[in-house]
């Protein structure tokens, strides 16, 4: 199995900050899955997800990461949840 992640890893805080810049009310929980600073899972809760499909919600997070997805941070598993008031 080829290695899916061979590019500079991103710090967890950097991921959280980038997400919160675009999604200000986001609650972000990040787990480093493999302890290698490059396989993360992120659970994001925000009211801005309300009424959006999962694809749209995940795209909001990818956009927040400004195109780093796929390139620098290949292995970020996402879970999004609508924040209810």
């Amino acid at each position, binding site marked *: *199995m080829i290695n*899916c992640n061979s590019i500079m890893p991103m710090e967890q805080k950097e991921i959280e900050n980038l997400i919160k810049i675009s999604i200000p009310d986001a609650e972000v929980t990040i787990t480093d899955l493999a302890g290698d600073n490059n396989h993360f899972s992120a659970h994001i809760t925000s009211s801005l997800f309300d009424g959006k499909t999962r*694809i749209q919600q*995940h*795209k909001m997070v990818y956009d927040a990461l400004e195109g780093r*997805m*796929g*390139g620098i941070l290949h292995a970020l598993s996402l879970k999004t949840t609508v924040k209810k008031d």
Partner: protein
Amino acid sequence: MNDHVSESIQSTIDSSDVVLFMKGNREMPQCGFSNAVVNALSYLEVKFEDVDVLQSEEIREGIKVFSDWPTIPQLYVKGEFIGGCDIVKEMFETGELSQLFTEKEIAHTKKD
């Protein structure tokens, strides 16, 4: 992405009910995320076409532009982009994937 690549992707998507753009193929997935989606589809015994994007850099990058989605794998059902690994896994776990196949009249084994 030039028209030739876009047309090639479109015709691939139109040619089968279920198309998975992945790294590797169903027998030899080359990435854990692609492998996870292959497993979900195999578990539901869904007939699908596997497209190994590692065979063509044009397709590998073109599909990301085509769907405006930055990663591989990408699952398409009856021409519609369903999602990548995270979304397909979540749909599989909640039963929504099986429900989608039922709604789209795609043969599969419903397992609860």
